[in-house]
């Protein structure tokens, strides 16, 4: 196993562990009070649960299709940005869709590599098809992403609202993404061996077999991508997966608290915790639980009397 192998495995490991840790941290946070926000798409279209008399006696309609009808246009077309911030849409969509295409290219290369490892001949139908789509995908992704990174950089600098709230991290993120796009584009465009090299590279990573030699632009691209894997889990760019939580665990989370229901134990745990807020009216002392504090209004009464 070469140093190159170790660097690749190490980067991937950091990425996976950091992402899982972040996801676990969010998921392990206590059940929060309900804070849903319309539209909640798993409800009957155009009809909220609360629009029925005695709503708790009816079974809850849940439509996965409703959720998908919101999620797919949002993920693929950035529908929200289109509707609410049209001026940003082109930069944002090209930046994101370029990445989707590059990820698509990586998936195709991975499939190609799996077939190679499995001993499927390179001139068989499926490998030929995969090889044929790899380069166009990478070129399209690299080109679109490059345009997006430049457009977003211009937008960040020229739009007063975005400029005012931009941090050093925003510009580094954009430069980093831009470098990935540009190097991927140049590698796929200029190197005739791009498809074979990438498939062999992935196969080598899968089997710990010797890795192929790459052109300088190839090494550069791989290095920048690996650095991105290490860096990304520690930035706001993790919204690519935390968006699942903001939607499914906050905006669309409307499970009612019913007697004997699945939320009871979590709620019991929450309200049994000691509270230490310092304001007099709260009446906390670090030992009294939430339940103790809200059960009566003794502290509020005392505060009123003192006033």
């Amino acid at each position: 196993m070469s140093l190159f192998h170790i660097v690749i495995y190490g980067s991937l490991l950091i990425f996976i562990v950091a992402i899982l840790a972040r996801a676990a941290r969010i998921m392990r946070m206590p059940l929060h009070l309900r804070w849903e926000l319309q539209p909640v798409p798993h409800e009957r279209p155009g009809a909220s649960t609360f629009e029925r008399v005695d709503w708790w006696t009816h079974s809850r309609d849940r439509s996965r299709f409703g959720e998908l009808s919101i999620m797919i246009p949002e993920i693929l077309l950035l529908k929200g940005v289109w509707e609410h911030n049209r001026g940003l849409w082109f930069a944002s969509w090209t930046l994101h869709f370029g990445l989707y295409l590059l990820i698509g290219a990586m998936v195709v290369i991975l499939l190609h590599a799996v077939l190679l490892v499995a001993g499927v001949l390179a001139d068989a139908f499926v490998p030929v098809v995969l090889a044929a789509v790899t380069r166009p995908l990478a070129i399209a992704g690299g080109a679109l992403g490059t345009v997006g990174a430049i457009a977003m950089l211009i937008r960040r600098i020229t739009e007063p609202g975005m400029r005012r709230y931009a941090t050093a991290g925003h510009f580094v993120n954009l430069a980093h993404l831009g470098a990935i796009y540009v190097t991927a584009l140049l590698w796929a465009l200029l190197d005739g061996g791009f498809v074979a090299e990438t498939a062999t590279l992935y196969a080598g990573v899968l089997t710990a077999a010797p890795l192929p030699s790459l052109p300088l632009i190839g090494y550069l691209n791989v290095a920048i991508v690996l650095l991105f894997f290490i860096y990304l889990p520690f930035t706001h760019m993790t919204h690519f997966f935390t968006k699942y939580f903001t939607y499914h665990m906050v905006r669309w989370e409307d499970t009612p608290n019913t007697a004997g229901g699945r939320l009871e134990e979590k709620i019991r745990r929450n309200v049994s915790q000691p509270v230490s807020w310092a304001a007099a009216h709260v009446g906390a002392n670090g030992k009294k639980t939430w339940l103790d504090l809200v059960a009566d209004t003794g502290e509020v009464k005392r505060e009123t009397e003192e006033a």
Partner: protein
Amino acid sequence: MPGANGKQQPRSVRDIGRRSERLAHVAVEELMPLPAPYDVSEDFPGIAPLKDETRARYGASATLDDTLAAGIPQPATEEDERKIVEAFLSGLRKLFSRENNWTFLQPLVLSMEHCARCQTCAADCPVFEASGRNELYRPTFRAEVLRRLYFRHVKPGGAWYNTFHSSGLELTYDLVARLFELAYRCTLCRRCAQSCPIGVDNGLITHDLRKLFSQELGWAPKELHNKGTVQQLTLGSSTGMNKLVVKDNIEFIDEDMSERLGWEVKTPWDVQGADMLVIENAGEFLAWPENHGCTAAILNGAGLSWTMSSEIAGYDGVNYGLFYDDVQLARVATRHFRIAKQLGVKKIVMGECGHEHKALGVIADRVGLDLVPRESLLTLVRDIVYSGAINVDPSRNDFPVTLHDPCNIVRNMGIVQPQRDVLRKICPQFREMTPHGIRNYCCGGGSGFAIMSPNNFEQWRNLISSRKKFAQILGAFADTELNDPEQKKYVCAPCSNCKGAIRDMLDFYGAKEKSGIYYGGLVELVVNAMAGAAEPILDWEMM
């Protein structure tokens, strides 16, 4: 601070912590324009300057934007300032702890750590737009202040790395004092949250900022705390009415309503085993008594088994804790549940009060165990009207009617159709505002603003936070003669706080005198349409 285009606005987030005479100022000519006859800025002078003694007393918290909604007296010494900063820091850490903020920790952290600062939310904020896009009111401004403090003082990861991703911000007393005041420049309407592609919620951030100040420092507007939840929990109602007074008032309302309708309207009290406990906003009993009278007339007319409670907090559905303090929210809600349990009712019916709907109907769902089902009066009224249990004659409501959607009922709960179904049946000239339903605009009185009017805050509300709604109301009646006060027009606002804000805005702009625009609730329109009533419930002269 002078910014771009000569506007007085912060140039950067850091300005909030830098001592200056004021951080921002909105001149009348910078405000979002209104259509004629409300387009003459000379008719509406700007926000009156704060008095010198107020400025002197409130110091840094009076240097935000020439307005003072809550304010905190200036500490006497630098040592006192330092203690406040330390207390704030302590509260900040508690805000991100599992024990102290289990109520909203997860959504708060998600909103803190994943904002792309794309500003997609900005265009959807009615306060930001109405102010002429003053930077101070951009929904991300106060969120960014809290975010930078979180990254610097709470989030693990090292100061350098966190500053790299969130820039720096020096924590000063001026920042704390101004941030408290700034937490009361957002109506928590959550329109910005709807437009965020990532799901970041600036409304929640503002809500939790208010909590930090209340639950750690004991800072909250007196209308929400001392006169609000404290009075409700100790005396019985935020209006100050105890049970004797409220029963007396309701008796009077019943008698008046009986007289006007020509049949008996009677409110039942403390009926053990009734089907439903009706809890309305007690402010209605004083400000809009006919609202309760009409509710009672409808429920009686439909022959339903219902009761009100004379227990402390049992006759007042408001829960201002929703706006500033989770503990107070839970105390009020727990009291409501306990009363319903003691009466043995099958459900609680929430009257025409938006924040009662949100607080009791949704948020309180997880503050404890052994709850009682809650239902909206709007839904119930829709079923009553369509069941034929009461006879309605739409020709009695043959005047232009538009509907204001209270954010808490619509955007936060999705109750959109029932009130429309009713209006379509009983109001031949019903027309929608644009936009409406879940994309409505706030009345400008949300999050407690409707009951807050210290110093010059009411002017700020009417000129800025209610401006977009006023423009919408005018737009809804654009096909009528806006210069004709004799042509009566009705804004249906099924929420007490919204009615308060709309009342004030119509008064402020002289809309009744200039355009004949009136306002009221939904049940008033229903009863006004009831066949056989001795006299109309809507008395334009008295409205």
